[in-house]
C-alpha cells in the first residue's frame, strides 16, 4: 500500500492496517429522509451492547432527550423542527395563516444553558438546563424558566390559525462514522483502538487505559470517556454480530430501513440512486454526507443522506482528520527543537567566550 496512509482516498483501510485477507469493508448508509424518529436504533444498540442508561432528562430539544453521541449513546436520533415542507409535500397549510415554530426559541433557550454546563454540553443526557448563569443570558422579558416549546402539540391539533405551522421534522440517527482515516485511531497511544478486518474502528476495552486522547482526536465529537468506567467508548458497528454474520443491532431494529447496513461500495451506489430519486421528486435539498473518499477523512464508513446542511444536524460541515497535518506539525516541532538545542548550546558557548560571567 503506498500513498494516502495519513489522509486522502484509501481503497482498502483494512488491508492498509495489515489484514492480509479480509472481508469487504462494511458500513451504514443512514437515509434520514425516511427516518421516523422512533429511536428503536438507540434502544437496540443499548440492549445488544449493554450500554448503560445515561440519565432520563427532558432536554428541551424537540423530542431529542438523548442530546448527543457519547460514551453511553452510540446511536443518537436528532430532531429538528423547521417551518417548511420537504420537496413538493403538502403539509396542508399552504396558503393558510400559520403560527410560529418553536425551534429557534428552543435553540436560544438550550444553547446558552448548555455552555454553562460542566463540559459545555459534551456530557450525555444533560441534566435540567437551568442555572443563574444561563438565566442571565436570556433575553429581557422572557422568563428564564421558559424553555420555549410552543411546538409541543402536533400541527393542526389545536384550532385557530395561530396554532398551525407549516412544518417539517428532520430526524436523523447519528452514529460513529468509522472513518477511512480515523482521528481517534491515529492518536490512540496504546493500540486499544484498531481497524478491524471489516474496515471498521473498534476500542479494545481490555487495552484502553482512558488517556482521553481519542476524545479530542475525533473531528465529529463521537467518542467519549465513560466517567465511572474510565475507558473510551463508542459504536463498534456490532463487531461481535458481524463475526456471527449478523447485521448490527440498530440496522436490524430500524423499521423503515433508514439505517441500511451493507458493503460500503454497494451502499454508496444505493445512496447515489436514492439521491437521484429524491432530486427527481423535487427534494432539491437532499445531499449525501460523508460518502466522498476525497473529503477530509477519506470518506466515512457510516455516511448519511441529509435534508439540510450537516451543521443543522450537529455534524461538522468539513471534518478533517488531524493526522493530515502531522508531517508539517512534526517539521515545525523539529525546527523548534533545533532552536531550543541551539539556544542551550549557545548559552554555554557564549558564556565561555564572554569569560567569567
Amino acid at each position, binding site marked *: 500500500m503506498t500513498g494516502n496512509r495519513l489522509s486522502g482516498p484509501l481503497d482498502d483501510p483494512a488491508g492498509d492496517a495489515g489484514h492480509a485477507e479480509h472481508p469487504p469493508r462494511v458500513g451504514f448508509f443512514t437515509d434520514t429522509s425516511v427516518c421516523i424518529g422512533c429511536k428503536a436504533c438507540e434502544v437496540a444498540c443499548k440492549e445488544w451492547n449493554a450500554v448503560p442508561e445515561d440519565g432520563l432528562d427532558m432536554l428541551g430539544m424537540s423530542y431529542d432527550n438523548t442530546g448527543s453521541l457519547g460514551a453511553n449513546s452510540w446511536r443518537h436520533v*436528532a430532531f429538528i423542527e423547521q417551518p417548511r415542507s420537504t420537496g413538493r409535500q403538502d403539509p396542508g397549510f399552504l396558503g393558510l395563516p400559520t403560527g410560529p415554530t418553536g425551534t429557534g426559541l428552543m435553540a436560544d433557550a438550550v*444553547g446558552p444553558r448548555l455552555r454553562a454546563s460542566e463540559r459545555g454540553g459534551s456530557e450525555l443526557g444533560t441534566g435540567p438546563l437551568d442555572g443563574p448563569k444561563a438565566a442571565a443570558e436570556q433575553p429581557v422579558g422572557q422568563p428564564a424558566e421558559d424553555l420555549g416549546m410552543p411546538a409541543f402539540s402536533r400541527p393542526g391539533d389545536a384550532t385557530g390559525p395561530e396554532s398551525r405551522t407549516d412544518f417539517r421534522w428532520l430526524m436523523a440517527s447519528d452514529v460513529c462514522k468509522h472513518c477511512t482515516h480515523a482521528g481517534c485511531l491515529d492518536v*490512540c497511544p496504546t493500540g486499544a483502538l484498531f481497524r478491524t478486518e471489516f474496515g471498521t474502528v473498534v476500542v479494545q476495552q481490555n487495552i484502553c487505559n482512558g488517556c482521553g486522547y481519542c*476524545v479530542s482526536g475525533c473531528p465529529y465529537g463521537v467518542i467519549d470517556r465513560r466517567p465511572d468506567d474510565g475507558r473510551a467508548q463508542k459504536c463498534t458497528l456490532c463487531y461481535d454480530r458481524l463475526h456471527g454474520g449478523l447485521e448490527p443491532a440498530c440496522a436490524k431494529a430500524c423499521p423503515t430501513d433508514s439505517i441500511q447496513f451493507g458493503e460500503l461500495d454497494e451502499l454508496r451506489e444505493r445512496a447515489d440512486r436514492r439521491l437521484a430519486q429524491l432530486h427527481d421528486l423535487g427534494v432539491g*435539498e437532499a445531499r449525501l454526507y460523508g460518502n466522498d473518499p476525497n473529503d477530509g477523512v477519506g470518506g466515512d464508513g457510516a455516511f448519511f443522506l441529509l435534508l439540510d446542511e450537516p451543521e443543522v444536524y450537529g455534524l461538522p460541515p468539513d471534518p478533517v482528520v488531524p493526522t493530515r497535518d502531522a508531517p*508539517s506539525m512534526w517539521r515545525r516541532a523539529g525546527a523548534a527543537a533545533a532552536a531550543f538545542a541551539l539556544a542551550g548550546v549557545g548559552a554555554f558557548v557564549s558564556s565561555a567566550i*564572554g569569560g567569567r560571567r
Partner: protein
Amino acid sequence: MTEEPGADRGSQGRTGTSHAATELSGEAGAQAENEEALDRNAGADTATRPAPEGDSEEGSIGREAQLFQGSGLGKRRRRGGGGGGRGEQTVVPDAEFRSYYGRPVLKTPVWDWRIPAYLFAGGLAAGSSVVAAGADLTGRPQLRRAGRLGSLAGLLGSMYFLVSDLGRPERFHHMLRVFKPTSPMSVGTWILSAFGPGAGIAAVAELVPARWRRTWPARLLARSARPAGVSAAAIAPGLASYTAVLLSHTAVPGWNEVRDELPFVFTGSAAASGGGFGMLCAPVEEAGPARVFAAVGAAGELLAAKRMEQRMGLIGEVYRHGKAHRLRRASEVLTLAGLAGTVLVARRSRTGAAASGLALLAGSALQRFGVFEAGVESTRDPKYVVVPQRERLEQRRRDASAAG
C-alpha cells in the same frame, strides 16, 4: 420547489430573503418572539411558500430590531437548531452559522488541569536538563546540581500528572505496548521513557549523602552521572517540543489552528523555565548560561506567541477572551518582567535573579494553562467548528467555479 439540486447548499436558509416569513404572523406583541424564531427559519421557506401579503414589513423589522437591541443581545447571540439565517443583517455583524440547538459539535477534552501542569513540568524537566548538562561540562557544580534536581522534579511531576489523569491509571504501562508514529502521545511516551533514566541517574547522583560516597554503587553512580545527564539533555529538545504536537494533533480548533507557532511557544517556554530555575537555585556567578538560556527562551516564547495571536482568525476569540486571555496576559507580563530582570538585574543581585527566575517559571506555567484553556473553550461553542469549516467549503466552491 424552485431550488435546483445541488444549488441549495449555499443558498438555503441564509440571509436576504428572511423577511418574507415575518409577515406570516400578523399579530404583534406576544407573537414577536415567536416571529423572530420563525424569521430565522425563513430563508428556506421562500421557495415553497406562496408570496404572502406584505402587511407589516416595516413593523416587523421594527419589532425585530427591538428584540435584538433592547434585550442585551451581545455578540454571543446566535442562531441555532434548524434555524436559518440571521434575520436582521444590520444589527449584529456576527459570524453567521447554524447548529443543532447550539450544542457543541466536538467533545470537550476530558483532560483536566493536570495536563497543562504536565506541559509545564515536562518543559521544566527538558530545560533544566540542558542547563545541568552544560553546567556539568563547563564546571559549574552548583548550577549543575540545580539543573539536575529541577529536571528530576519536572520528571516526577510529569509522571504523576500523566498517570493520574488516565481513566485507568493502573494501566499506564499499556502506553508501552506499541510505538505509534501517528500518535504524538505514543511518541511522547517513548521520548519520556528515553529521557527519564538519564535525568533520573544524574539527579540521584547529586543526592547521595556524603557518608556513602565512598561505596562502590555511589562511585558507579557518580561516574555514570555525566553520560546520563548528557543523554537526557540530548533528548530534551524532543521533550520540550513534542507537547505542542500533542495538543495540535487534535480536532480541537483552538489547538489545531495554532499548530505552526505552538512548538516555538512551548520550546521557548521550556527554555525560560529551565533557565529560570537555574537562576532561582544557583548563585549568580555560576548562573550566567542559565540567564542567557532563559532570556533567549523568554524572548522566543513572547515573539512566537505574538505571531500566533496575529495569525489566528476566528479562533483568536478564544485566546482573546475569558480565562484563557487572563492566564496568557498574566503569563506575558510575568515573562516580560522575568526577561527584563534577567537582562538588567540578575547578573548583580541574587534576590533579583531569584525573583526573575520565579517570574519566568510562573510565566511559563501560565502560558501552558492559557493555551490549554483556549482549546477547551473552542470546543464548547459550535461556532469555532462550523464557521471555519463552512468558510473552507465556500472557498473551495468558489475556487472550483473559478477554475471550471
